[in-house]
């Protein structure tokens, strides 16, 4: 019986040495530089593969950071936290002022806004906008055909009771995909920490807006006057908020006759 120990130990020892030698040799002979940082960065990235960074996916972004010195602040989903962590690995300092932004659909039209015709066909905003820019009489009006909702990787977009896209700011990761998707160009990034927004992009005069839409900005300048911070300016018939000055006092929200300024805190 003792023999079996001997044989097996020597056999295994032999096999072990053999492959040890082989592997040692080949790992020397065929050694390929591999950067461990790539893997580490990949672990930090959210892994949503949303493409907001402009690379096909998180893996290729991490490769680009290491190999092509790509900027480390491109992942909007991960935001500042991710960028800091990547900075630690790469030994780069990041711009601390990176504020998180979320998307905001700047339209409240929907059923409040007249249709020029009845659209039938594929439920897609691009498709509809190919024909007379879509069925809404307002050329800045949300078509409500859910293109942005379908593209959002984080399910942050829903259609509200007026048939207008609405963004759940808790879910929005600021990837900006919806902004690229919307054929009407009515989704914009707004600071996450501000709640008062002009929810309209119509630059036409009151005369044109009024008959078409109940909630479109008519450029009446009441908000401009009521704002104590001088945070609102009406330009091209459209109110615009300077977020650096806005304190969220809601004065304009109360004053606006068409309720084109609104809070999105919910």
């Amino acid at each position, binding site marked *: 019986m003792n023999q079996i120990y001997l044989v097996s130990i020597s056999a295994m020892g032999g096999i072990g040495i053999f492959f040890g030698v082989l592997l040692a040799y080949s790992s020397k002979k065929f050694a390929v530089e591999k950067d461990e940082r790539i893997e580490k960065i990949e672990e930090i990235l959210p892994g949503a593969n949303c493409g907001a960074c402009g690379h096909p996916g998180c893996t290729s972004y991490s490769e680009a950071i290491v190999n092509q010195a790509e900027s480390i602040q491109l992942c909007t989903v991960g935001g500042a936290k991710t960028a800091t962590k990547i900075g630690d690995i790469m030994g780069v300092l990041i711009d601390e002022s990176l504020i998180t932004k979320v998307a905001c659909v700047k339209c409240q039209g929907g059923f409040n806004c007249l249709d*020029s*015709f009845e659209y*039938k*066909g*594929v439920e*897609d905003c*691009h*498709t509809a906008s*190919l*024909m*007379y*820019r879509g069925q809404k009489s307002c050329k800045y009006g949300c078509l409500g055909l859910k293109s942005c909702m*379908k*593209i959002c990787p984080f399910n942050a977009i829903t259609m509200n009771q007026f048939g207008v896209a609405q963004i759940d700011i808790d879910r929005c990761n600021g990837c900006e995909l919806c902004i690229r998707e919307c054929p009407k160009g009515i989704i914009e990034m707004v600071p996450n920490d501000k709640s008062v927004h002009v929810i309209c992009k119509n630059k036409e005069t009151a005369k044109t807006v009024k008959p078409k839409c109940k909630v479109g900005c008519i450029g009446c300048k009441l908000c401009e006057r009521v704002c104590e911070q001088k945070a609102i300016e009406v330009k091209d018939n459209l109110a615009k908020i300077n977020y650096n000055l806005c304190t969220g006092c809601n004065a304009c929200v109360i004053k606006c006759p068409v309720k084109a300024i609104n809070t999105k805190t919910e």
Partner: protein
Amino acid sequence: MKRKVLSFKGGIHPTYNKELTKEKEIEKVEAPSIMEIPLVQHIGAPAQPLVKAGDFVKMGQLIGACAGAVSANVHASVSGEVLSVEPKMQTAGMVSTVVIENDGKDERDSGIQGIVSIDKLTTDEIINLIKDAGIVGMGGATFPTHVKLNPPKEHLIDTLIINGAECEPYLTSDYRVMVETPEDIVNGGRVLIKVLGIRKAYIGIEDNKPKAIRAIEQIIQNDETMEVAVLKTKYPQGGEKQLIKAVTSREVPSGKLPSSIGCVVINAGTVAAICKALISGMPLIERVVTVTGVGIKNPKNLLVRLGTPIRQVIEQCGGLAPDCKKLISGGPMMGIAQYTLDNSVTKGTSGILAVMESDDISENESSCIKCARCMDACPMGLMPLKIMQGIKGGHEDEAMEFNVMDCIECGCCSFICPAKRPILQYIRTGKAKMRLKRN
């Protein structure tokens, strides 16, 4: 002698419904008091406005100038005062439009004079005259004709095909032109033969229009340079690529122009318009429009001044049925649905069609059952269902793999689909998104 009937692979057989207007002679329509003339009635750069509000214009006067390599002149179709020049939503989108208050006098522009002898003109002179007259393709594509007649130098042209197929259901405007003024087409064809420096022109006509075939053949009996090519009645026989394949057995390579294989295709109405413009000197200010469909009380073929609002044209035919839900500029296969009666008739408006909702449009869309009928019908040999699948799933690159860009948007696939899938609409979306991506 039984003639060979030419055809191509794929295509469909819709109900033609041409009887509504087939035997109706072309009637002239009075121009209404307000004319809205868009400065884009063609493919390419918009014409440069030459008038402003308050100006007085005469009939045939140039009001928009050809601007760029691919563009075309626009002329006033009536005399009167310009009320405004402003962007208006037209069939082609938001375009700058000259609004003229018609004074009813039809005062001709003084510069207009007929040409006595075309033979004396050089090729370039003829092309310039065609350019001046603002002639664009009237078969639907509205490509400026003078550009077409000036193909790239390396392309050796040997064949002209005059497109008299008129394969779109309902439409009869080309047909009426061929039947009523066949000499215009033949004479125009002879001019073009000279311009292109070639020996042979074919006039392609579908075999459901024997009268037109006879009318033309009578004139060209002893003319070696011209021949009627009888085509099988099938949509889209009039499509440029299909026509070339049927007549010459050549195929236009993907992404190339017909001239690269030595062919030029020009619509029969366009040829007639060229002939008329050269002889009378009057630029293109009117065209034949077939006004038809069950929604129209009194279907007709009308000679309409460009810029006439569709509302006026329809009134000439007894007005619109009250339950008509859909109005189309052009034929039912390729025409563009209108959302208002205020759009104007332009150089490309071959027909105005009013259909009832319940008529043809089926709403019970269901899932694709992979019957492959769309593939069999596609005259370009594409796989429409695969393209649709790709675009629907948001993978435009997949659609590219299936050559979406080769689609001629004929609509055969959507027509034939038993599941009533809006295939062509998906394709258009995909193409649009692709273009967006490229920019």
